[in-house]
């Protein structure tokens, strides 16, 4: 491709791009990028495939070497067997409760605080906001030991439901996040203040303005915060590992890890359990793929 033929190509766009004038190049019947993307996708999907295959094999097939790449019969009994040896339904329910309540708490508390930081002038606002921003930078490992002591104390002296070994212990410390407050404050500040002012003139209270006018306008930001909070809560492992010891209160990652510890070599059972913990998340992911992708991308946009 020479520089002289390039301007003509640029003008006629795609038609000219296909065949440089005078000379016909031999072309693949498909985009050459498939040659890269297809193998890459096979590699990316192979762990999922292998997980599924193993979960449907007999123990003898799973421990066969060379591995059985396509099982002869599908052994669905692995799933009831896994359910019989660990309460995956309970783990799932716990995870769902913790994630849902955490998301709702965050939406309410971060909206309120974010709105006040965005729009109100009150004594100590700047100092308070600075403190919140400072906590944003500190890794969880720095706070986890005192958090453990505080949660333990709260459970003994205030309310058992938020103490060690209760689901509340997984919700309360994450009921509001510095990231959520900061994220919503930034979004609220981009909204035109005129609607809010005219509603105020018409006699609406601050809370009414927030609920009726601001939050509907902030729906995309709220959806993003909800998706990110849900993912964080659903995948959290270290804090449940510290705060929860009894099987009944375990969330999916912790339950799965404990199950793995107890069934080290029973690969078919372990993979069945793993599939059961993965599938709900994958289904949610496929249904809400747009939101997921946009939310993850939003973390990048917030960072730049």
């Amino acid at each position, binding site marked *: 491709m020479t520089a002289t033929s390039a301007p003509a190509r640029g003008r006629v766009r795609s038609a000219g791009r296909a065949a440089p004038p005078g000379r016909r190049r031999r072309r693949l019947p498909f985009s050459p990028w498939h040659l*890269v993307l297809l193998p890459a996708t096979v590699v*990316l999907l192979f762990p999922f495939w292998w997980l599924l295959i193993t979960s449907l094999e007999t123990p003898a097939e799973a421990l066969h070497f060379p591995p059985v790449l396509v099982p002869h019969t599908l052994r669905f009994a692995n799933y009831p067997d896994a359910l019989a040896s660990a309460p995956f339904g309970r783990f799932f329910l716990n995870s769902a409760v913790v994630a849902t309540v955490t998301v709702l708490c965050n939406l309410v508390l971060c909206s309120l605080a974010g709105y006040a930081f965005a729009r109100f002038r009150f004594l100590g606002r700047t100092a308070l906001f600075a403190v919140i921003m400072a*906590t944003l930078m500190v890794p969880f490992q720095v706070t986890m*030991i005192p958090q453990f002591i505080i949660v333990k104390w709260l459970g003994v002296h205030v309310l058992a439901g938020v103490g060690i070994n209760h689901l509340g212990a997984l919700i309360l410390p994450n009921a509001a996040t510095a990231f959520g407050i900061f994220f919503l404050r930034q979004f609220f500040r981009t909204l035109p203040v005129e609607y809010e002012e005219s509603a105020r003139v018409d006699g609406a209270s601050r809370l009414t303005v927030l609920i009726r006018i601001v939050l509907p306008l902030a729906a995309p930001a709220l959806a993003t915060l909800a998706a990110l909070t849900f993912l964080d809560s659903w995948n959290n492992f270290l804090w449940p590992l510290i705060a929860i010891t009894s099987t009944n209160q375990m969330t999916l990652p912790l339950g799965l890890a404990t199950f793995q510890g107890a069934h080290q070599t029973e690969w078919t059972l372990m993979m069945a359990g793993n599939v059961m913990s993965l599938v709900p998340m*994958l289904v949610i992911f496929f249904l809400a793929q747009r939101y997921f992708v946009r939310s993850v991308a939003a973390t990048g946009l917030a960072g730049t």
Partner: protein
Amino acid sequence: MTRRRLVSSEQFTGWAFVSPGVAVILLFGAVPILWSAVMSFQRNNLLSPDTPFVGLANYRQMAHDPVVAQAIQHTLVYTALFVPGTMAVGLFLAVAMNRQIRFINFYRTAAYATVAISTISEAIVFIWLFDPSYGVVNYFLGLIGIPPQQFLNSPSQALYVIVVMTIWGWTGFAVVIYLAALQGVPQALTEAAAIDGAGPWQAFRRITLPLLSPATLFLAVWLTINALQLFDEVYLSTQGGPLNATTVLVYYLYNQAFQQFNFGYASAIAYFLFLVIIVVTVIQFRVGRRLTYYRS
């Protein structure tokens, strides 16, 4: 309503609105930060109920603890491999996927799907894939004439297996970030470069890559912060072994805090980790600022 009443009502409503959220963050964020700072100067373990101040003893102990030195080394090696690895894979796939060809939605969804898998599920699958006796990876290696490897059981290989599994787990995230950034690169610019005689590689190097630099800086910082806090995969696959070969800082910290119950010593390690994260992030931003191109 007068202006004055509006303003004074803001005092009250302001505090009313922020208090619940701020209370949570103060109680579980700000207070613990100060508390663990204090604890790092105390002897706090199960041996005695008192927690006397011991000055810098915990930090001094850390300086002489051979496991801490190993943990730092493993954490840095892991980070140095994982961060560029994930970014390279993410950038390559995102560039390949940034076009309207057949099955593109399938390719993209397949890459995104790794966002939905938890670290625990990921670790369990990879432990099985890399199983020394029955793992399918050894089978594939056998097909190309490589003898079976010990992988997670081998002190010289375990950390690299963890690098591979975490790169896989973060691929979707990196692809999403780079694809979003690529969508912001105006096609007019790359087309103009083509008209001016730039080859595809030159256009990519001179135009696309600089326009992606904010996303690159973000990914570098974000992945590094996460890499320095590696824990889940290590806890599940190797428990820091074999022979401490995969003991990273957070794993050792967890071990000290919640298996040995040395809260004081663990707090000192936590603050050291915090320091490492701050230093690395500041360096990245310093270097990044010079190399990053912002259009606005």
